[in-house]
């Protein structure tokens, strides 16, 4: 009994130490924008996964392209096709995770790029000079390009925050830790019950 008490105290101490730290798992997060896909990879403790392999597959598991993450655990690539993309991160020592980028997201990133083609923006500038303040003359593709420009600026901080929240969600919570210990104690009870019946 004394031993169990000391051990429980020891575990409590370990828990205190563990308070703000995370553990061993690698995560990947990706989003598409302006014809490019941006990925960010990090370990559970928030450290970036440096120099890890990234493989991009299509729906049929056909390899489209590969790359390596940089010092910030980031890797970006041009969208090969406007289809659903499976992005697989392979960090060293058997750590692996994947992220599925939906077809809608990829498609919208590609179409946004088209609206921003250089010719269009030139045209937009010229039209603005010619007809200042005449809103009805602006066609939908130009409007879309302008809007996506503004939106992109507005969305950037939100994106960053999303990544941060995603990272926080991955971190084990104290209730999960205590729950796990509870499961083990429950198993102990079951084990003792059966062994006790055997003994009698």
């Amino acid at each position, binding site marked *: 009994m004394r031993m169990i008490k000391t051990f429980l105290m020891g575990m409590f101490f370990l828990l205190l130490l563990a308070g703000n730290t995370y553990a061993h798992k690698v995560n990947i997060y990706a989003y598409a924008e302006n014809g490019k896909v941006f990925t960010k990879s990090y370990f559970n403790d928030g450290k970036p996964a440096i120099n890890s392999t990234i493989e991009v597959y299509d729906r049929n598991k056909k390899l489209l392209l590969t790359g390596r993450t940089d010092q910030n655990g980031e890797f970006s690539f041009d969208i090969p096709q406007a289809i659903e993309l499976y992005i697989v991160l392979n960090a060293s020592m058997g750590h692996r995770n994947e992220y599925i980028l939906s077809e809608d997201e990829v498609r919208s990133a590609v179409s946004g790029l088209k609206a921003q083609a250089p010719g269009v923006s030139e045209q937009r500038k010229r039209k603005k000079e010619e007809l200042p303040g005449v809103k009805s003359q602006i066609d939908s593709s130009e409007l879309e390009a302008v809007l996506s420009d503004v939106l992109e600026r507005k969305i950037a901080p939100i994106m960053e925050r999303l990544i941060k929240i995603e990272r926080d969600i991955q971190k084990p919570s104290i209730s999960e830790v205590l729950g796990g210990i509870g499961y083990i104690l429950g198993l102990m009870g079951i084990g*003792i019950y059966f062994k006790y019946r055997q003994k009698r």
Partner: protein
Amino acid sequence: MHISEGVLSAPVLITGAALTAAGVGFGLKKMDYEKIPEVAVLSSAFFVASLIHIPVGPSSVHLVLNGLIGLLLGWSAFPAILVGLTLQAILFQFGGFTTLGVNTFNMAFPAIISFYLFHLFAGKSLEHSRLIFSGFFCGATSVLGSALLVALSLISTGEAFLPAAKLIVLAHIPVMSIEGIITAAVLSFLKKVKPELLMMGKGGKL
């Protein structure tokens, strides 16, 4: 230490699962009534230990404590580690269900070896300096053993053994020393409060 889902090939997964099943079966058989609470407590310690993480180089590593578990539990380390890993997979998404067998074997097998090594080194006497030394040695080598087994498992993915092993072993050197110190400290503490725990394995009882 936790190999993720989808990295290993089927033969490796099946071999790991079979070895673990054998180890767990044997461990459960060896586990008697009085030992169950001890197994549960050490299993919880293992479950929590992986949350204590040590930043090293490009990767991150965490405590394993398999040496300590092995030399206190003997063969019962197999069920203890399996339970800890299962809960880590469910609650923290470390490793995965298909790799549970391989991961358990990778951590539990060196634990068993450290159990035998400990009784070889520490001998019958519980002399303090010897206890500290063998505790440190076993704590450190079981982490080393696990790192090597992980590298060995990764061969099937096409990773060459030597570079992978070098990387994993290097990353775990800080963990090895910390685990050695923790194991030695726990042993010297147990010797004071409950020396009969350390006498397991004497008189044919594993």
